[in-house]
C-alpha cells in the first residue's frame, strides 16, 4: 500500500464528520511532516490512529446517559432480531414440512425486513415492523410456550423496548454496508453453529459478540451495553423460569448494571483529561 493510501486508511479511525471537515488537511500535513522519512511517517500514522480512536471515544463520552442507553437498547433489539432470525432458520431447517412452517417463514421475512431497514438507516420502519412482529410472537408464545423452543433464551419484551425507541425517536444514520455484512455473518455463523445444538450456538455467537463489545468498549461502549442487556435478560429468564439452573448463571442478571457502571466511569475519566 502506498503511503498516501496507508494514511487515508488511518484517517478512517476518525468520525466521518472530522474526516469530511479536516481529512484532506490532516493528510497533507502528515505527508509534509513526514518528508519522505519512513520512520517519521509510521510514527505519524500511528498517532493518527490513536487520535482518531480517542476522538471517537470522546464523542461517545459526550452523549448523555439516557441517549447512550437508548442507542444501546436499539442495538440490543437488532442483536435480538439476529438471534430470533437464527432461531427461525434453525426451526425451518430442523422441522422441514412442519405444519407451523409457514408462520415461521413469515416471521423470518419480517425479521429480515427489520434488519435490512435498520442497516439502511430506516429506523422508524424497522421499529414499527419489529414491534408488530414482537406482538405477534408474544401472542403465539403466550398460547404455545413450546412453539419456538430454540428462541426461548430471549424474551420478547426487551427487544420491544428498543423497537419502540426506533419508532418514536429514530436517528438519522447513513446506510452501512459494514452493518449488513456484520449482521449477515452473525446470522450465518449462528445458524451453522446452532443448527444441531438446540440453540446453544446462539450462546456461542452471543459470547463472541460480547468479546467484540468489550474489545471496542474504550472507544464505543454501545455494543457492550447492548450485549449486556441481552445477558441480563437471559439471567432474568433463568431466575424466573428455570429455578434449577446453577446459581452462577443467575449472576448474568448483573451484566447490564455492571457495564452501565463501567460506561459511566469511562465517561468521567475521558471528560476529566486535561488538554
Amino acid at each position, binding site marked *: 500500500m502506498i503511503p498516501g493510501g496507508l494514511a487515508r486508511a488511518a484517517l478512517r479511525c476518525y468520525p466521518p464528520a472530522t474526516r469530511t471537515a479536516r481529512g484532506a488537511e490532516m493528510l497533507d500535513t502528515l505527508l509534509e511532516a513526514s518528508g519522505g522519512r519512513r520512520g517519521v511517517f509510521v510514527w505519524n500514522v500511528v498517532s493518527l490512529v490513536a487520535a482518531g480512536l480517542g476522538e471517537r471515544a470522546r464523542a461517545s463520552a459526550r452523549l448523555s446517559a439516557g441517549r447512550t442507553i437508548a442507542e444501546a437498547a436499539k442495538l440490543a433489539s437488532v442483536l435480538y432480531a439476529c438471534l430470533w432470525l437464527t432461531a427461525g432458520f434453525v426451526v425451518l431447517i430442523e422441522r422441514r414440512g412442519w405444519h407451523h412452517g409457514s408462520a415461521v417463514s413469515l416471521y423470518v421475512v419480517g425479521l429480515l425486513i427489520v434488519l435490512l431497514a435498520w442497516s439502511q438507516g430506516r429506523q422508524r420502519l424497522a421499529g414499527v415492523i419489529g414491534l408488530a412482529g414482537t406482538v405477534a410472537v408474544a401472542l403465539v408464545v403466550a398460547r404455545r410456550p413450546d412453539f419456538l423452543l430454540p428462541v426461548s433464551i430471549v424474551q420478547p419484551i426487551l427487544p420491544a423496548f428498543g423497537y419502540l425507541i426506533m419508532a418514536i425517536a429514530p436517528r438519522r444514520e447513513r446506510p452501512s454496508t459494514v452493518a449488513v455484512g456484520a449482521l449477515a455473518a452473525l446470522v450465518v455463523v449462528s445458524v451453522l453453529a446452532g443448527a444441531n445444538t438446540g440453540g446453544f450456538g446462539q450462546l456461542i455467537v452471543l459470547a463472541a459478540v460480547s468479546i467484540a463489545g468489550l474489545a471496542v468498549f474504550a472507544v464505543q461502549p454501545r455494543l457492550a451495553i447492548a450485549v449486556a442487556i441481552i445477558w441480563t435478560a437471559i439471567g432474568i429468564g433463568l431466575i424466573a423460569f428455570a429455578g434449577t439452573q446453577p446459581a452462577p448463571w443467575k449472576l448474568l442478571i448483573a451484566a447490564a448494571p455492571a457495564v452501565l457502571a463501567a460506561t459511566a466511569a469511562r465517561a468521567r475519566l475521558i471528560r476529566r483529561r486535561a*488538554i
Partner: protein
Amino acid sequence: MVMPMELRPPSYFALASLIDGPLHGYGIVRRARELSDGRVRLSTGTLYALLERAIGEELVTAGEPYVQGGRQRRDYALTPAGRLALELETERMASAARVVSARLRASARTAPA
C-alpha cells in the same frame, strides 16, 4: 469558556507557536519544535487533537481552508483567551521555577563540601 488548569508541553508550545501570527498545521509543527529546541515533536494526530480541543475551549480559531502548493491548508490563530491561558501557564511555570531555584541555591549553600 473553560480555562484549562494546566497546559501540557505539546499544547503549550503549539499555542506559543501562534504568538507571532496564524500558522497552518505543518507550520505549527515546525515552529513548536524550534521554540522547544527540538524537545517537542508534534505528531499529526497529537497536533489535530490538541487543536480540536483548543478550538473547543476557544483558545484558538480556525480559518477557512485553502490550497497552497497543491496542499490543503487552514490557518490557526490564537484568541485573546488563548493568549491569556499562555500567559497564566508561563507565569505558573516561572513561579514554580523561582521557588525550586531558590530552594536549590539555599540547599547548595548549607550542604557539606
